[in-house]
């Protein structure tokens, strides 16, 4: 009979069973013995009612617990204790490093190198992947290039002006198109000479990129037959831009100072 009570008591949640399981089983067994002393049917009735009662109580204890495990004893480390532990750790680390300066130097250099590399990688990732392009609608910009598998051409090459005209006139999903080519050139202003990166582009490059000039006007608004114009970027070495507007250098005209 004790085995029966021990089995049915296992229906209780563990916390309750650990605390009161033995007492519940002992009392159910005592109820049975008292009833059995009167008559056998009374004893059987006692077993039945105790079983049903324990099952119902176990179910209720699962649904609405009256007993939960006591929380683990607190170690008594509050915020102040937390900082005390940190201070002790740092003090111990400082003493250990003073005892072996060679190891300390290697450690510091390793940490410095690791932090430098990490910062550098993050800068690249942040610039290339995280920060959006400095244009009006970077998510709407697409770069179109050509490819000719099986030919002698490189895997990717710039499209010809015919494609530019074709896209400009017939494409319905593209709002604006610009074509450009980049190179490096030498700029001479007075007695000053600089190597500067340059790009030859159609005048639509500014409207395509959503860029506006910091000073002056865009080349697209220039009258026909005017000389080719140059638009120095904000990073260009031409200092004193307002005075350079309209100035002819060789065969080009400084028309604007762009933010791109």
């Amino acid at each position: 009979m004790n085995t029966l009570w021990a089995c049915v008591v296992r229906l209780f949640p563990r916390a309750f069973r650990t605390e009161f399981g033995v007492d519940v089983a002992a009392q159910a067994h005592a109820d049975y013995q008292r009833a059995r002393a009167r008559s056998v049917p009374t004893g059987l009735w006692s077993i039945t009612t105790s079983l049903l009662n324990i099952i119902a109580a176990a179910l209720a204890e699962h649904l609405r617990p009256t007993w939960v495990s006591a929380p683990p004893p607190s170690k008594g480390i509050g915020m102040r204790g937390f900082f005390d532990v940190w201070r002790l750790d740092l003090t111990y680390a400082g003493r250990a490093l003073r005892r072996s300066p060679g190891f300390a130097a290697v450690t510091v250099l390793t940490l410095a190198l690791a932090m430098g590399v990490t910062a550098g990688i993050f800068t690249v990732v942040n610039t290339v992947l995280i920060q959006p392009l400095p244009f009006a609608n970077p998510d709407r910009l697409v770069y179109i290039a050509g490819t000719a598998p099986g030919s002698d051409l490189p895997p990717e090459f710039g499209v010809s002006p015919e494609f530019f005209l074709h896209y400009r006139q017939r494409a319905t999903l593209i709002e604006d198109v610009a074509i450009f080519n980049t190179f490096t050139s030498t700029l001479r202003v007075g007695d000053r000479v600089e190597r500067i990166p340059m790009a030859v582009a159609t005048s639509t490059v500014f409207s395509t990129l959503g860029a506006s000039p910091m000073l002056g006007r865009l080349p697209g608004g220039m009258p026909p037959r005017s000389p080719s114009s140059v638009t120095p970027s904000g990073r260009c070495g031409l200092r004193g831009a307002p005075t350079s507007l309209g100035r002819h250098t060789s065969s080009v005209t400084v028309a604007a100072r762009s933010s791109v």
Partner: protein
Amino acid sequence: MNLLDYHVLLALSSGPMHGYAIKDAVALDSGGTQEPRAGTLYRIIARLISTGQVRETAPPSDAPIHPGHTRRYYTLTLAGRRTLAEQARLLKGAAAQAERRLGASGRS
């Protein structure tokens, strides 16, 4: 607080008791109307301990040694005594109200 909780507090007001003695005392105090089975009784004891109204205590010095397993004794805390007094006051008021109404309806 339901009636069984009240009867368990009432049983323990006479002194420390183990589980089976609590059950007998409840049955006696309630005139046989309340006779909690093991699962129900120990859930009530667990709830009263969790709410700080009952605590486990050492067995009295004259407690008989029970064969099988050591019996655990429970006693009321101060909070338990206050709860019992408050419940008794409420029940007394409710009983008086019932007697007044029954008496008034009996006279009419």
